[in-house]
């Protein structure tokens, strides 16, 4: 036990250091962009399978601007990517990426709060101004698109496998139905999980209070206690859903579209009547980026309807550029055979171009900052992690 007490003593000696505040200094758009110029290259961190492996859009960009793009599928999920870049940003060091894509949520909020992001110069984003749909401008999590613009969006709804579920699923209440004991998959992410608990109680996430959170956690705990939930998944729910380990699950729209298209499964995706959430994967520039001007140019380039159409054809998530649908229609008219079939499938899918009816049921997330996170996250982690 001598060892332990020595360690404790050493710990106390160390304790004088503490851990420094991790925030950077707030910058204004003018201040940040002063004297910055294009360097002819940039590195882009994105999620796996978020661009055609041949990178036609990046080739087009290089052709048009001469800027070379290093593309890196570095982001597997928001928390761990945040965990990786945060220490570097805290020391004002470049993270090796000039452009990155993160989902709206706690991590993005922290990035903004800690002043880790470059404020966008909207004078250099003409395509965004012209072609982005209104719902993607001035979002609740980033008013005025100060730091971010969406890359692609999606819906968190319910997916089910009709091979095992013999009735139509329409409501979040179905996830609480004991007929599906041990066959329901929920998301482990506290924010996603919380949203469904709130919808179950008839509360809109964006307007929810602390009291609502506690009630939502209770509802989710009840669902768990009834033995309904097989597992709280991080992202790997598609396979179990396809092969029958689970029969229905919280799900992301694009995943279901892709799985059905590629594997020939017949998974059904529903926007439940109580509501569902619309999320966006957003492009942003870390404030330590070495090539921010090039990154900004690429961001705007993705809002060219031609380019957006190309991305959507591959990604199958919701595009923030509605005009891309026209482009795809033109393309489909000229195409034939399998290509035509595929394009029509994309154009007609409510998972890629949601109907107005669906849009009405879509909501924003609970606004979480580092101030209220302590009150929020543990409630839902104790459901998924105990």
């Amino acid at each position, binding site marked *: 036990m001598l060892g332990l007490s020595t360690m404790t003593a050493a710990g106390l000696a160390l*304790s004088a250091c503490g*851990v420094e505040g991790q925030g950077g200094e707030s910058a204004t758009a003018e201040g940040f962009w002063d004297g910055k110029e294009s360097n002819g290259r940039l590195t882009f961190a994105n999620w796996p399978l978020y661009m055609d492996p041949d990178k036609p859009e990046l080739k087009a960009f290089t052709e048009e601007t001469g800027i070379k793009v290093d593309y890196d599928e570095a982001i597997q999920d928001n928390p761990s990517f945040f965990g990786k870049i945060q220490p570097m940003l805290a020391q004002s060091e470049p993270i090796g990426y000039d452009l990155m894509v993160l989902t709206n949520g706690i991590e993005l909020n922290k990035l903004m709060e800690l002043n880790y992001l470059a404020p966008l110069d909207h004078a250099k984003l003409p395509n965004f101004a012209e072609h982005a749909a209104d719902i993607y401008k001035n979002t609740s999590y980033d008013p005025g698109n100060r730091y971010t613009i969406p890359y692609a969006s999606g819906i968190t709804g319910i997916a089910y496998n009709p091979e095992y579920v013999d009735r139509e699923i329409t409501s979040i209440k179905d996830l609480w139905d004991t007929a599906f004991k041990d066959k329901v998959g929920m998301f482990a992410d506290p924010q996603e999980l919380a949203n469904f608990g709130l919808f179950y109680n008839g509360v809109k996430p964006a307007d929810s209070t602390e009291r609502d959170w506690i009630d939502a956690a209770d509802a989710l705990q009840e669902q768990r206690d009834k033995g309904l939930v097989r597992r709280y998944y991080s992202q790997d729910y598609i396979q179990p859903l396809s092969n029958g380990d689970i029969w229905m699950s919280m799900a992301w729209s694009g995943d279901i579209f892709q799985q059905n298209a590629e594997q020939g499964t017949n998974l059904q995706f529903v926007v439940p009547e109580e509501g569902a959430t619309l999320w966006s994967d957003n492009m942003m520039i870390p404030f330590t980026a070495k090539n921010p001007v090039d990154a900004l140019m690429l961001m705007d380039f993705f809002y060219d309807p031609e380019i957006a159409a190309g991305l959507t054809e591959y990604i199958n998530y919701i595009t923030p550029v509605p005009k891309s649908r026209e482009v795809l229609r033109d393309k489909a008219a000229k195409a034939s055979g399998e290509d035509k079939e595929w394009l029509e499938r994309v154009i007609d899918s409510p998972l890629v171009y949601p109907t107005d009816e669906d849009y009405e049921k879509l909501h924003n997330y609970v606004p979480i900052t580092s101030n209220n996170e302590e009150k929020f996250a543990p409630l839902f982690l104790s459901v998924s992690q105990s």
Partner: protein
Amino acid sequence: MAATQAGKRGRTGRFAPYALVLPGWVWLALFFVAPIASVVSMSLMTGSLGAGYSFTFEVGNYTRALGLYWEQILRSLLYGGLATLLCIAIGYPVAYWIAFKGGAYKTTYLLLVLLPFFVSFVLRTISWGFILSDNGVILGALKGLGVLPADFGVLNSATAVVFGLAYNFLPFMVLPIYAVLERMDHRVVEAAHDLYAGRVQAFVRVVLPMSLPGVFAGVIMVFIPTSADYVTATVLGGTGNTMIGKVIQTQYLVNNAYPLAAAITFVLMAVLLIGIFSYAKALGTEQVMEVQAR
């Protein structure tokens, strides 16, 4: 034997040993002892990611850690304990058979036990996840034959987790037991056979007691990593199977709640290390380490 070895070791050298151990000491002091100390210090801090954390002797982190996560801690010890018992039950007969009946192929058998571990631990665990799937290669086939009911499942349960843990750490039990059995003087075993007529008697009275140091070393080598592992439980577990390692990982890397995470880490470490030290004290650290070294 021990006496002569001690004699050999008693050679004097005034500076030589220090010159030899110094680099190792420095490395272990900087990257093992100091980090443990910084966990202690961090667990007593307060603050936030944005504002920074400062040392305030906040004992509240510990009450929170225990209050929120006592269940996961106990569960981890339980799963680790069950996996350890399973490893003994599976590993002892295997080690025994290889040591006494393996004959000329002893080494081959031992290597066969070790070979699967050339494949990454993460990859093996994930493979189990696919194999155990409700309609996968094993369960699907058995269900097709009507041996199992259609709604039978193993994946995402405590059973899957415990078996997965035992699977991943079995060699750490087999090796030390084998090492002890293999070095046993076979004349003693034969004498035992002559002395106590029954095989069972000979085993219980002679072989088992002599092999216990191997079992003890195996228990340490299996119990600690299994009770702190979270990869297996994350892949093979389901609702209500979360182990404490996952909580620590989440609090550090996902929530960045460093002080709370450090407090949980320290609690886990204290529980395990105190247990192990008292266990090793009773048996002798040297002895346990020597068995490990073989």
